[in-house]
């Protein structure tokens, strides 16, 4: 397996893996903030939202110039998957900026 092949395979799942970590981070911060009554809860959630989107945005811009199979095929699938992950992150985490965090 060449370095290009490995890179393409990692990129294929990188975006949604980052999305998953972001999901866990935001859901965890929401629960902890409510349980321990954090005064800056909203600010922390918004900061986490931005921090989570940063790697997703970076991944969605990476265009691997891979030559030969399988890297060339997977690189394009990876680009689409990572852009989808960014869109998913923007949409699913957006409520962190406005929705009531605690009951």
């Amino acid at each position, binding site marked *: 397996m060449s370095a290009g092949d490995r890179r393409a395979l990692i990129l294929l799942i990188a975006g949604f893996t980052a999305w998953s970590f972001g999901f866990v981070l935001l859901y965890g911060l929401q629960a902890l903030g409510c349980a321990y009554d954090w005064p800056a809860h909203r600010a922390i959630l918004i900061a986490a939202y931005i921090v989570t989107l940063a790697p997703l945005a970076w991944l969605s811009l990476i265009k691997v110039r891979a030559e030969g199979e399988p890297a060339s095929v997977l690189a394009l699938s990876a680009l689409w998957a990572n852009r989808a992950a960014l869109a998913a992150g923007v949409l699913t985490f957006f409520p962190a900026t406005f929705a*009531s965090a605690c009951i």
Partner: protein
Amino acid sequence: MTGKPSPVRLHKDLETIWKTPPGIARLSSVNHTILGKRFMLLALIFFAIGGFLSMLIRAQLATPHSAFVGPEIYNQIFTMHGTVMMFLFAIPMLEGFAIYMLPKLLGARDLAFPRVTAYGFWCYFFGGSILVIAMLAGVAPDSGWFMYTPLSSRPYTAGINADVWLLGITFVEISAVTAAIEIFVSILKLRAPGMSLARMPLMAWYMLVTAGMMIVGFPPLILGSILLELERAFDLPFFDPTRGGDSLLWQHLFWLFGHPEVYIIFLPAAGVLSTIIPVFAQRQILGYRAIIAAIVAMGFLSFGLWVHHMFTVGIPHLALAFFSAASALVAIPTAIQIFAWIGTLASGRPRWDIPMLYVFGFFFVFVIGGLTGVMLAMVPFNTQAHDSYFVVAHLHYVLVGGFVFPMLAGLYHWLPHITGRQSVYRLSIPAFWLIFIGFNVTFFLMHLTGLMGMPRRISTYPSNWGWDWLNLLSSVGGFILTMGFSLVLVDMILQFRFGRRFRRDPWRAQTLEWAMPTPPTDYNFASLPRVDMRADAIEPAPLGPVLASGEGYLGFARNNQQETLAVDMMTGVIEHIVILPRRTYLPLWTALATGGFFVSLLLGHYWLAPFFALLVTGLILLWPASLGFREDQGPVPIGRGETAPFDAESTSNAAILANRTALVTNATLFSSLLFGGLFLIVVAPNWDSAPAPLVPVWLSILAVLAAVAGGASAFFARATNRAGGAVTGGLAGAVLAQGIATAAFLAIMAGMGNPTAHASIAIAFVTLGYCALHSAIGAVIAGHALWRKHQGYVSARRATDPELAFLWNGYAGITAVFGAAMALLLGGIL
């Protein structure tokens, strides 16, 4: 191996090595074709049982004030209907299909671990039998297929009904986890030479992602079942809010599995559609790369939806919005696939045949199910429709549309492959229309009964609420549906008996499974193909005879060995020859011993369970006894003028990858346990005056240091072995260190206080028990590697055993750190 054998001679030689004799010897079979068919046949029997139960449900609900069965029996019937259909039909059916089909699609002779396939089948058979026997004895589970606590807790379900579910399903899930690991590894390693990931047929991509989802999706359910059984059997209060537990923890653990489960069922069916549609459209599938991206997206997104099953339990708006958005979003990658299929049909030259009728049925039913899914993803509507028959209608449209219709299409497409005969079609068309009409009459009307307020799981209802005629029509539709399935069964039998024989590739398909004799031989291919193009664009008809004449790889018999090839997981470059184990009764004995463990727990003979656990361990240690070589062999011929080493001499072999994958499964279970502990600390009531577990710091440090030292010692042994040095010291050190760690963890557990007093002590107790178990496993595996070394199976080239010892001892060291930290946190020390 002198000279090239004739095709007939080659066939006879391979048949002698690979065949499973008839009679009682069939029980020793480890062949994927036989076991795949067995999985599917048993799944169909359970489908019939589940279908029969659904008929009882519809008979009960056909009229108001029904006295057909009482509420106690009705509870068992609907619980068993859901349990059987989800755990004993849908998952095993997809496993059986993958087990039968994947090696054939990928150009291999079998899966990577044939004995694991057999062990999984027997666990499925015995575990499913426990549930059915319990039902016949009148003690079936009766708390709903998702077994919500506190209803399923001891105070509200005093008998063994819930234990039957928890232990029986956990037993069955062994087969799901083993199959997932085996499918994952087989797709990555056991492909035809030249078949890179980007040349795989889409079916393999779907199964790869599905297996990955099962690897991380099933552990939360298994953990939840273990915790609930510990609560029921030993009163450890994980879900009891009066002692620091929380019922919502069960719901989180169940749906962390339960929602991805829907996609675990759908994705293989989508793989079937992506394989069949291009055949009948007579063109390659559109959007191969977009579909790969969509499958990956679905695989991940499906893990971010689970709380939409819990929208009404009292969750903040923010969390509701997270899960609502993710639930709606998952429709997009689904739609990408549906448009790719429609586009393939629109741009091809579609020919209509029976499989295409079911593809049409899929489109119609699944799209309706998907649309009602988007409706239910919206919190306000979900709150209104929650626990009503609208949800029953939705889930049946999704599951039957997304699994049963595609699988029926697959059945008609691939049954000729199994039987060697084609359908005569006299019954196929009326059977389809009975199923299609019967299904829609039954379940479309349930949308209306649900919107009119009829709740799920009620055994009877009054006659003045406007539900009467809708329920009666649903019941009529249900019986029409059953007639349709009965006709399919008759049609299958007729095809086996009277179907037309055919020569090769009757559908003019373009995948490798049709480049072999049908019905398939036990060895699949007389020689293995080289794939230099997309594997869904080959021509099986001319390729088949070439492979049958031994022109491909491994077109010979050698040393009575069952051989196939392993490749680099990305590029498809040949790596090594895999020697697959031959038939044996060991998987059957091991499954029986595993069954003894579960039955002794079920009957309350807890003292007996450890003996069965030891027996299982001993039997599993016998499995590798005959594997490997006592001398280095070096590269040997594989045909076409090429050579490759045997798997024992490769450090990237399937056994190592499988153990890494198993550790990922294991780590998911451990993470779920840590999540459970943190969830209770943060969310559960009655923690203000919780008793803290007594966790001595010095003993914790000793346990952690010993477990980490075990990992380091195994690492040292592996490095020394690679350099050609002695491994005995390193492995013996790992055994000793892990033994000390196990004893230290057990000592902490013994003195930490009463684990039934509060969830704080119970969580610490179970977490450290997990660490103790894994230190003990590390010691056993290091000891086993030591024994293999002394038997002569280990050298610098034959390094699998030290590698496995390092993996498991390293894992034990890592879990010891996190486990001890959790216990110290609960003890108020951190």
